[in-house]
């Protein structure tokens, strides 16, 4: 047994030592913890950690197999996302004790704060005292045992799992109900209590999901396929999309959830043009050889940066929205092109990890598939706050796509219309966020860059928060981004266009002296190398492409991603449909496309008179429409339109 005195060493050093001793199988005693945060996070060895006093936020967070014992109280997020292992707390726990656990046994001898067991998937959380408000909020599985009172709204929006309450049930949450308790369940609980030396002889009431809100009453079927250019039409009034919307709503009696992005015409990168005459672009030898495009992203605070052969990344898209083969193809293409791929929501598969040389791992509020082992093998971590196509909403995955396999990875019940939580249990403001970022760094030893994905909304404020909270880079997602499934009205009418987003982000970063320090990756409707160069001119350090990559890999843009019966085998989990997809061939197609993007970026950069993409600047651009000029602050110069069209004809 070794002792670590937090009166003498920092938490960061202590965690390094804890991991080191843990790997050697040595038990650890932590002295003078004084309620400091992040003690023991990311410990993945079966050793005992005895904390002699109170611990702060995220004690035992992101741990696996370890056994923690805390003599006094703990702060928020006890055992966050813990896999196997045990935690015993002798005092009280703050809010969200046992948040997102996937197998651990957690016992709190005092009271637990609000939202205990939020989004937990498996394992047991036991509170010997009283629980507070909304215990079991949005839980997907596992067991909560509360020996005292339940608090208000217990089981609020739980999808699965069981809550057993010994004391009074103050009130039931939405879609929760009382049910009969089996004798064997009581025996199991007694055995658990005996094992943890808890004397309790009283009875229990059992609370489960009431089954009223897990699925939409009527699902939305594919009716006919309208090509995107028809779909987006020229008229906002009675184009085919509007007709389709009306028809579908007449069948389902609610708002639509569909795939792809908004179809409204909004000011975009195509409303900008280059000031300089670029008719010579690509004519002076091989531009790719002549222009420096290598870009590093995420090294701001000393982590290992992503190394991109050009300022392009793959935008986050989930295994779930997309098939396993598609994620594999995109990963392979990213490796061939020397850029980075992103898992999106829903976990990291071995196939994905194997295919992509550089992979960013995305963390959403539901913590679906999030875990310490995949964090450790990621090249970047990303906290999803929101998405350009549907800011303020979580992911949506219709029941057809929530197969057994997918549900297992995510730790959720099979066959539900999954509406992932729109906010994180532990990020309710910039102040909490900074503690979360620190947890990820502590758990992974400060070597993996941590980014934030911001769906453009309150860009000015949010980008400053991202900078102040110490993120290594931002993925900024404009309204023209797409999604596998989203409310149609939201996609059309909520959000901030990509042009406005990047302009506001740069202005805000300037105000806090963060320009040139924290990198910004721009996405949301970046279609090709011309768009990419314009994004870079506006200040982005790189761009990320999603829809374009999917189309390069065989998508026919039928707008039915949500249905789950994608004819190309891309947006489906049905093996029959997926069989049509050839990942190796599509990876080559995507790669060829990305090489085309590379050539375009190089040719334009060279024709603008630069030797490196870092030299691109705002002064290279003008706006072709008044709206685009308003949004970007660029000079309004419609006379450049023909030149822009000619450029697209030449290098497009």
């Amino acid at each position, binding site marked *: 047994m070794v002792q670590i005195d937090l*009166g003498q060493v920092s938490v960061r050093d202590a965690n390094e030592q804890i991991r080191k001793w843990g790997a050697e199988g040595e038990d650890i005693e932590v002295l003078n913890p*004084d309620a400091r945060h992040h003690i023991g996070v990311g410990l993945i060895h079966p050793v005992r950690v005895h904390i002699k006093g*109170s611990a*702060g936020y995220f004690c035992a967070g992101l741990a696996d197999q370890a056994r923690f014992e805390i003599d006094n109280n703990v*702060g928020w997020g006890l055992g966050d996302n813990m896999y196997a292992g045990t935690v015993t707390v002798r005092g009280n726990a703050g809010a969200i004790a046992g948040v997102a656990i996937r197998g651990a046994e957690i016992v709190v001898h005092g009271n637990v704060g609000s939202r205990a067991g939020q989004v937990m998937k498996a394992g047991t959380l036991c509170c010997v005292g009283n629980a507070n*408000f909304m215990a079991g909020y949005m839980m997907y599985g596992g067991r909560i045992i509360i020996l005292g009172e339940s608090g208000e709204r217990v089981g609020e929006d739980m999808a699965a799992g069981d809550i057993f309450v010994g004391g009074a049930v103050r009130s039931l949450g939405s879609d929760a109900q009382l049910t009969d308790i089996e004798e064997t369940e009581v025996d199991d609980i007694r055995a658990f209590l005996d094992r943890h030396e808890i004397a309790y002889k009283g009875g229990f009431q059992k609370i489960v999901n009431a089954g009223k809100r897990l699925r939409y009453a009527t699902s939305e079927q594919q009716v006919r396929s309208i090509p995107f250019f028809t779909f987006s039409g020229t008229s906002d009034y009675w184009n085919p999309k509007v007709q389709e919307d009306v028809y579908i709503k007449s069948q389902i009696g609610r708002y639509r959830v569909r795939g792809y992005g908004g179809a409204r015409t909004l000011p975009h990168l195509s409303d900008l043009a280059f000031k300089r005459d670029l008719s010579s672009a690509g004519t002076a030898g091989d531009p790719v050889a002549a222009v420096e495009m290598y870009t590093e992203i995420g090294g701001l605070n000393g982590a290992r940066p992503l190394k991109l052969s050009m300022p392009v990344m793959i935008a986050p898209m989930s295994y779930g929205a997309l098939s396993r083969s598609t994620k594999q193809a995109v990963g392979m293409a990213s490796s061939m092109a020397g850029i980075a791929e992103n898992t999106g929501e829903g976990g990291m598969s071995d196939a994905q990890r194997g295919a992509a040389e550089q992979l960013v791992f995305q963390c959403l509020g539901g913590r679906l598939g999030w875990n310490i082992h995949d964090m450790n093998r990621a090249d970047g971590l990303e906290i999803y706050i929101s998405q350009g196509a549907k800011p303020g909403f979580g992911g949506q995955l219709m029941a057809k796509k929530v197969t057994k396999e997918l549900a297992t990875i995510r730790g959720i019940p099979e066959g539900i219309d999954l509406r992932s939580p729109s906010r994180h249990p532990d990020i309710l403001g910039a*102040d909490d966020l*900074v*503690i979360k970022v620190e947890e990820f760094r502590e758990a992974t030893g400060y070597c993996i860059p941590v980014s934030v994905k911001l769906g453009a909304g309150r860009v000015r404020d949010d980008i400053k928060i991202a900078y102040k909270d110490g993120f290594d880079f931002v993925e900024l997602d404009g309204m023209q981004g797409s999604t596998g499934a989203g409310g149609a009205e939201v996609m059309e009418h909520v959000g901030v266009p990509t042009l406005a987003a990047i302009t506001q982000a740069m202005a805000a970063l300037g105000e806090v002296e963060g320009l040139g320090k924290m990198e910004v990756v721009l996405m949301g409707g970046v279609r090709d190398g011309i768009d990419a160069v314009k994004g870079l001119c506006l200040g982005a350090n790189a761009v990320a492409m999603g829809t374009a990559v999917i189309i390069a890999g065989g998508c026919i843009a039928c707008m039915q991603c949500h249905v789950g019966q994608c004819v190309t085998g891309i947006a489906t989990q049905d093996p029959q449909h997926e069989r049509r997809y050839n990942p190796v061939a599509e990876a080559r197609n995507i790669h060829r496309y990305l090489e085309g993007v590379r050539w375009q970026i190089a040719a334009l950069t060279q024709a603008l008179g630069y030797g490196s993409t870092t030299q691109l600047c705002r002064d290279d651009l003008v706006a072709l429409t008044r709206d685009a000029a308003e949004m970007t602050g660029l000079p309004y110069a419609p006379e450049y339109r023909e030149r822009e069209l000619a450029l697209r004809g030449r290098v497009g």
Partner: protein
Amino acid sequence: MCGIAGVMFKHGSTGLGTGQALIDMLDGCQHRGPDSTGFALYEDVEPGKLRLRFLVEEENGASDGVGHNSGVEAAIADIRTTLEDHGAEIVEDEHVGNSYRVVVRFSGDVQKLTYDMEHAATLISIGESLDIRKDVGGAHDVDDVFHVREVQGTHGLGHVRLATESEVKPEAAHPFWATGFTDIAIVHNGQITNYWKMRRRLERRGFEFHTDNDSELIAVYLADKLANEVPLEDALKTSIDDLDGTFSFLVSTKDEIGYAKDHLAAKPMIMYENDDLIAIASEEVSLNRLFPGRALDTREPPPGSYGTWSRLT
């Protein structure tokens, strides 16, 4: 977006002073708000006199709109003239850091005086016992300028701030005073979502606001109740239903300290009490700064709760 702290020594402070206690607690949660730090300190030093503190180092001078904004000296001259015009007798004054501190003898209408003063300069604190000291930077930065640690005091509040929607400026730092009232300070973590509705309701009744910060609203809301002889505890109780949003806040008056927490409990708060003191903070790590190496028997207030403590001496 911030961290808050409050402490009251029930029998007056012995040993550890109010200033030092708050510095320690705020330093413990500075990660919640690195942009600015502020203290509301109560001490019985000038009985029968009023202590006022003004911000005098704003970018455009302290008195824009009046036409005398040519720097700090002019601002101070303005303040002195306005005070004298209202019959306040200046006993003591000092220009320190970003602020101008004045002690006056005054027996007139405080609300009228403060409203008029606010038209001349940015008044950030007024009271017989209260003194608010705040600036950009961390707890130790503010202490370096304002010597917070030297304040023995009886009780006080502190705040660290991460600016989200407003700029990083001293006047946007907490604590806030209740414009128009003496000896009332507030620190707040959260967001009042029915801000404009509540503000208009108070404005219709003649109250003035000098910032767009929702914390000022809470201060004025409570001060209004107190002025109508509603006990602080009852005012806190109604605040939980009248104010909408997610919030944890602390309030202090000459003799009391109190807290309120909204029904959703989205903002943290934890407290420790013994025979000598009550200490409240956003995180236990701040409370442990007062008692290093000890396992404290702390309590997290439930959602929708409130409470007050009074000085015993």
